[in-house]
């Protein structure tokens, strides 16, 4: 009996150990995600540059920069406590200018961080960890909510005002020959045109450049006693703080000697008769106002599009031809792509969510490729192109509200839909009011105004697939019984009504009418 018992014990214990250890591993592995309620920080810097020297022995350290700047404030220390100066600018590295070796960097961090923490702790204040695991956490304990930061027109204006329009304060170019930075007047562009994601030889990354330029300047300005932007991480990168950045309304136009109107030539040939498509006038001044940054369209540099996007494409344009760059759907840099995105606006989506993205009407091209005012065979001198462009732009007649008196008489005030009224009463709706509202939604919007051929284009939002007319065909002409084999994509009458009306209301974000009873009451 004793033999059996000892045998059972001997066999059960290993089994139990195996089970418990596997369970433990499983439980251990499954909790690698930070839980809800963990700290959300915008200033998390991951200290793991040692991975450039080989595989990391311990996980990287989640360093909360703002905590440290705040702590330094208390002790009246400044950035120099951790950042060395190099060429009158602060090095972004911790207490060093370059990474020499794994040992050097590691020992630097360990000795200085832990020493400082110990000092503060001995002074009785709250300090950082001193044991290995306190910094090198196995499980991520913080969630980074850092949002990228950028300039928009408003912020740029605040800076130009503060620096009295001295562009050279921030904008520079690099001279290969003299190996020096210099200011190229009226050639200023976004920092990102040169400073990319990664530091290249002789060109620092966008991240380094912006911190060196921005934070350094802010720091110095504040030290001089003047008002400046933030130098804490969260000041720029915390989404809440970003929302609090003051926005200037009606930013005056940036002065860079940019054109007001541009004539986009579709070929190298003069206008007629060799060129295939009419040249397109482009209202550059107006478009400057529509965007928050120049970068939206000028995505690589601040030059004319056809510098890279030639008719046949170049290496710089990655093969994207002029035509593609102007018409590419879903690309915000292209004209048509951006216009398509604007159609998703709540004021427009009611009709435009139904309308096909592909251009069908021939006259749509002519909205941009405007017919020339005069037929000439002479090539246009370059100096006259802007004038020609302006003339073409002025020749347009955008649609405006309101309807004329005659139109208002022709448009029925109320429409009663009696068809299919079985369970519900006929649906009455304010037809004229809807038409007027849609026209009013165009408002000052030049895009809508110029692209809708005339006021009655509005009607075609609902009265579709038929020529524009005061007396459009009844819906029942095309929509009758559902699931017609000859016209499988057209809904039946019930579906057509509900999809059109409810679809438009949904796309325009209307809160009523939405339910069944709000359009038609139930029959008693």
């Amino acid at each position: 009996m004793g033999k059996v018992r000892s045998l059972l014990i001997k066999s059960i214990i290993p089994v139990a150990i195996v089970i418990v250890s596997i369970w433990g591993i499983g439980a251990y592995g499954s909790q690698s995600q930070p839980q809800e309620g963990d700290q959300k920080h915008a200033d998390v810097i991951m200290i793991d540059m040692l991975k450039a020297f080989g595989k990391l022995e311990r996980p990287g350290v989640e360093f909360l920069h703002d905590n440290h700047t705040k702590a330094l404030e208390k002790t009246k220390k400044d950035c120099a406590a951790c950042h060395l100066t190099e060429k009158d600018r602060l090095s972004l590295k911790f207490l060093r200018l370059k990474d020499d070796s794994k040992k050097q960097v590691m020992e630097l961090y360990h000795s200085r961080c832990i020493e400082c923490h110990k000092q503060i702790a001995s002074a009785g204040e709250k300090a950082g960890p001193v044991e290995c695991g306190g910094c090198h956490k196995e499980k991520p304990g913080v969630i980074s909510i850092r949002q990228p930061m950028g300039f928009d027109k408003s912020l740029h204006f605040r800076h130009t005002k503060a620096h009295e329009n001295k562009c050279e304060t921030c904008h520079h170019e690099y001279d290969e020959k003299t190996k020096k930075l210099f200011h190229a007047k009226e050639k200023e562009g976004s920092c990102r045109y040169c400073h990319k994601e990664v530091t290249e030889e002789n060109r620092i990354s966008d991240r380094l450049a912006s911190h060196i330029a921005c934070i350094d300047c802010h720091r110095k300005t504040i030290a001089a006693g003047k008002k400046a932007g933030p130098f804490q991480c969260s000041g720029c990168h915390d989404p809440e703080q970003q929302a609090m950045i003051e926005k200037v309304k009606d930013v005056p136009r940036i002065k860079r000697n940019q054109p007001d109107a541009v004539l986009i030539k579709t070929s190298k040939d003069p206008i007629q008769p060799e060129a295939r498509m009419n040249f397109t006038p482009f209202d550059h001044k107006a478009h400057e106002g529509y965007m928050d940054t120049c970068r939206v369209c000028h995505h690589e540099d601040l030059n004319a599009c056809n510098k890279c996007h030639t008719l046949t494409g170049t290496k710089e344009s990655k093969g994207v031809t002029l035509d593609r760059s102007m018409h590419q759907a879903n690309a915000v840099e292209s004209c048509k792509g951006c216009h398509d995105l604007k159609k998703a606006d709540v004021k427009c989506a009611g009709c435009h969510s139904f309308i096909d993205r592909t251009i069908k009407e021939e006259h749509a091209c002519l909205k941009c490729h405007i017919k020339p005012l005069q037929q000439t065979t002479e090539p246009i001198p370059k100096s006259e192109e802007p004038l020609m462009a302006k003339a073409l732009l002025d020749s347009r007649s955008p649609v405006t509200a309101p309807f004329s008196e005659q139109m208002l008489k022709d448009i029925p005030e109320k429409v009663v839909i009696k068809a299919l009224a079985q369970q519900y009463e006929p649906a009455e709706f304010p037809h004229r009011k809807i038409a007027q509202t849609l026209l009013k939604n165009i408002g000052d919007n030049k895009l809508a105004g110029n692209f809708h051929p005339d006021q009655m284009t509005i009607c075609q939002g609902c009265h579709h697939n038929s020529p524009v007319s005061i007396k459009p065909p009844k819906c029942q002409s095309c929509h009758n019984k559902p699931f017609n084999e000859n016209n499988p994509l057209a809904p039946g009458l019930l579906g057509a009504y509900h999809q059109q009306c409810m679809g438009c209301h949904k796309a325009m974000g209307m809160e009523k009418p939405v339910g069944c009873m709000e359009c038609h009451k139930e029959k008693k």
Partner: protein
Amino acid sequence: MSLTRRRFLGWIGAAGASTVLGRNADASSTVHFKGYPDSFAILHDISLCVGCRACETACNKVNELPPPDLPFKDLTVLNQKRRTTAKTFTVVNRFENEKNPKQPIFVKKQCNHCLEPACASACFVKAFKKTPEGAVSYDHSVCVGCRYCMVACPFEIPAYEYDNAFSPRVMKCTMCHPRLLEGKLPGCVEACPKEAISFGKRREILNIARERIKKHPERYIDHIYGETEMGGTSWMYITGAPFSQLGMREDLGITPAPELTSGALGAVPIVVGLWPVLLTGIYAISQRKEKVSAEEQALAVAEAVEKSEAAAKQKLTGELEKARKDAQKDKDSAIKQAVKKALDEAASVKQEASDV
């Protein structure tokens, strides 16, 4: 229990006959059933559904189901996720729209009328049939109530009348098959005001779905749910949000359910044919072994007996010989003694006579 040749042949014959009598089971087929030609299908455009529950109302009316606990106009039921029950062939559920929290997504759920239904494959009285019209119909007059169909259905659709003691039925959407035969539309299809459910021949429905996705790539995910899932269904779905967020499993695979069990079923006739042979063989071998060991044992016993008999015989003859010799010796010595005694007696008598 000995195995005669006649008996052995008889058993083999019986085994062979039983294999022949079995039905053919196509275990591994590379042909997928694409549905009867001209069978109907239904497309549910989830982006159009507004959760008005008109379909539920119509279904309840057409199938003469008992009235619901809460009226169909009560949209608070959408706060919970529901499944089909014995009284509801179809339900509409509401899901969060991550892209646009103000506009939730509504999905109608009902039997998907698979091309190769799991329920029909699982039913051991063939109560489910895939009709040429596309509907998977249920015959309650043969149903035993084993509920294997409910286990088999990957979409968790069939429901059971557990509270009925005498005639419980499996309840699920019938695609209004009787109405289809009359040329009418299914109740829900007819009732939907948004035409979020389109009806037509399966290949047409697929075309419509593909067209819609092509026309509005920003509105739909490029996948028609039900085109290939579980071998294809007659009820298909297109939507803008991922299907897994809408309570529709994306891990079901494309293998039709009958193929999952056809391998096991295919093994049955093989077992029936092969096992008797194997077992009879083992029996024969074990019998033979026994026989051989019995023979060997008998041989060994016989030898041992013979040996001991011979030894005994030899011993006996030896003993007899010895006894005879001993007896002879005794006899001789006795005779000698008697002769000596006689001679002595004669000598003494002579002495006596000479004395006188």
